[in-house]
């Protein structure tokens, strides 16, 4: 029995935007990320679950109960807003216990829960401050504390880290994971940052234009993207897409492969000859942006330092066991690679920091997704 179930949920505005025919199931205690570019309907989906938006079709079940027609307050969930939605005239403590007061929970109980969550979120000593006297990270923690103090099994988070700088984002990300585990929360987490989605979640939903593109564990999404869209959205740099004809395949295919599966040899000895556009030495690895007329976003990640010159032509070896075949027309994944696709793939594919300086191939993708 799944804890959260969406059944062909639809909410659109004049036939566009929003979400269309979404079905999804989630186990209790799982961490689900809804990932996608801006305008793909991920926030709408969250607001539908929260009850802040009403679906035009479909049902929502939480813990076996049909909540489709229930108002937000009766769905037994908490929510962290992107803007934090802290009440500016109330102190930290009053903000956190606002909901408990509204629900007339006894003072002693309120105090106990307050001190518990303040300790959990590291906000002790700031109880009397107003939100305007807090830093961005502290405000974020107050928002988390307000969600945690409700002690509700389902917690919705709408891009909670997007207003923080890169360093804080990392720290708060860890706090969110710890908090979710400690309270055994089922979390639905909306983000446009694949790094957050990959590193936090048990399950990722990748959305595109109001529909689900792919659902799976982070590893599944990385290793076997269901479409060229998924292939190019996930990974940093994303999957390289090569016209299959250039590699001698029959038919209308596009070959996708992860940059770490590529190796380089002297020109003329590989499957393709490509020009090196740019390369970045990152200590543990070297990233190369390659150019070939039949390839889109061709990149390679080589272990250790590499000795190349920009503008140099090199041979690219594309091992057949790492090739994923996509239909060039529909973009969907068609054929299994002949052997285990994970054979040469890095163990932890998620970039630790979603906002690392993008490589040249990634810039285009990020621009599109903004």
């Amino acid at each position: 029995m799944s804890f959260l179930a969406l059944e062909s949920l639809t909410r659109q505005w004049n036939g566009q935007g929003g979400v269309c025919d979404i079905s999804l199931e989630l186990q209790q205690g799982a961490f689900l990320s809804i990932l996608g570019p801006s305008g793909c309907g991920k926030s709408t989906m969250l607001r539908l679950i929260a009850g802040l938006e009403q679906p035009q079709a479909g049902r929502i079940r939480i813990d076996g109960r049909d909540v489709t027609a229930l108002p937000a307050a009766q769905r037994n969930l908490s929510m962290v807003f992107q803007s934090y939605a802290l009440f500016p005239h109330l102190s930290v403590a009053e903000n956190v216990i606002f909901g408990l007061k509204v629900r007339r929970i006894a003072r002693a109980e309120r105090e106990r829960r307050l001190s518990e969550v303040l300790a959990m979120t590291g906000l002790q000593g700031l109880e009397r401050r107003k939100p305007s006297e807090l830093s961005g990270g502290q405000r974020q923690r107050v928002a988390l504390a307000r969600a945690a103090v409700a002690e509700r099994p389902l917690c919705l988070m709408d891009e909670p880290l997007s207003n923080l700088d890169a360093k804080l984002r990392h720290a708060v990300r860890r706090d969110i994971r710890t908090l979710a585990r400690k309270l055994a929360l089922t979390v639905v987490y909306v983000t446009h940052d694949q790094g957050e989605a990959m590193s936090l979640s048990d399950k990722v939903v990748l959305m595109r234009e109001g529909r689900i593109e792919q659902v799976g564990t982070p590893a599944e999404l990385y290793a076997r993207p269901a479409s060229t869209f998924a292939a190019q959205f996930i990974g940093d740099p994303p999957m390289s897409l090569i016209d299959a004809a250039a590699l001698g395949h029959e038919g209308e295919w596009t070959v996708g492969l992860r940059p770490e599966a590529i190796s380089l040899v002297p020109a003329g000895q590989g499957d393709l000859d490509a020009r090196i556009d740019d390369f970045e030495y990152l200590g543990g690895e070297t990233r190369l942006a390659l150019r070939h007329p039949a390839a889109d976003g061709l990149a390679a990640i080589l272990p250790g330092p590499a000795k190349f010159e920009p503008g140099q032509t090199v041979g690219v070896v594309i091992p057949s066991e790492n090739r994923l075949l996509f239909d060039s027309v529909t973009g969907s994944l068609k054929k299994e690679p002949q052997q285990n696709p994970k054979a040469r793939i890095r163990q932890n594919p998620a970039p630790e920091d979603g906002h690392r300086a993008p490589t040249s191939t990634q810039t285009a993708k990020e621009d599109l997704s903004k």
Partner: protein
Amino acid sequence: MTDAFTFERRRRALHGWLLLSPALIMLTAFAFYPSLATMVTSLWSRGTRRNPAEFAGLENYRYLFDDPTFWQVAGNNLSYALVTIPISMALALIMALWANSKLPARGFIRTAYFTPTVLPMIAAANLWLFFYTPSFGILNQIGALFGAGPVNWLGEPETALWAICVVTIWKEAGFFMIFYLAALQTIPPDLKEAADIEGASRWTYTRRIVLPLLMPTTLFILVNAMINSVKLIDHLFILTKGGPSDSSKLILYYIWENAFAYFDRPSAAAMTVLVLALMGALAAFQFLVLDRRVHYR
């Protein structure tokens, strides 16, 4: 070296004074000097060609305090303020909350509320003169439908002041609503959503979140309403001229009468000084005491 330094300092000072001068000149000509002159006038006796004005000290004030009309006018003005300020502010808030919600003809409703403020005061007063006309005015005609006898709203000492109050409330509420509406629109909608998820009712949300966030606006409106309550004069010219038997006379009208009808400038000046002092004290109370309890974003 020192010369260059001095020159630079002077240049900056000059620059500062130049920037300051427009406001300084305007305020001096139309606010500081008149206030000071009024204060001086209030301390001198009324001068005629034969008896030039001489220093009278607080004589004018003593004379004023012995004048029963002054006390009646002050009482009228107090009742007028106590009735119009709370009612027009409450109405303004209710209308703003309503006009801020999702309504079909929201733009039309907002415009309709604001119309009384846009109308020139004299035109508005003439409009109400028709409403209040005995026997064939709209109010009496409606009353007649329900069998009520004709009432001379503006002609009876018991009703004249209240009739003036109604006109003021009608005019001010729409004006204040605009401020409330503007303030309501600065409250981010996700606060409402956060409160919804916590299970706060509409009333709890309004009382615990909206009203505290509107406090700066409320304070601002309160100051304005108080100033307006001693500033009303044009309606009186059209509607009652302060009558009957001073029952609807307000302080500014009485000051005007003293100064320009009875040509008793010292009395008018003394009253003006008292009004200024009262307003100053109220403003100080509002900004020093109430301000501390208001949350500014």
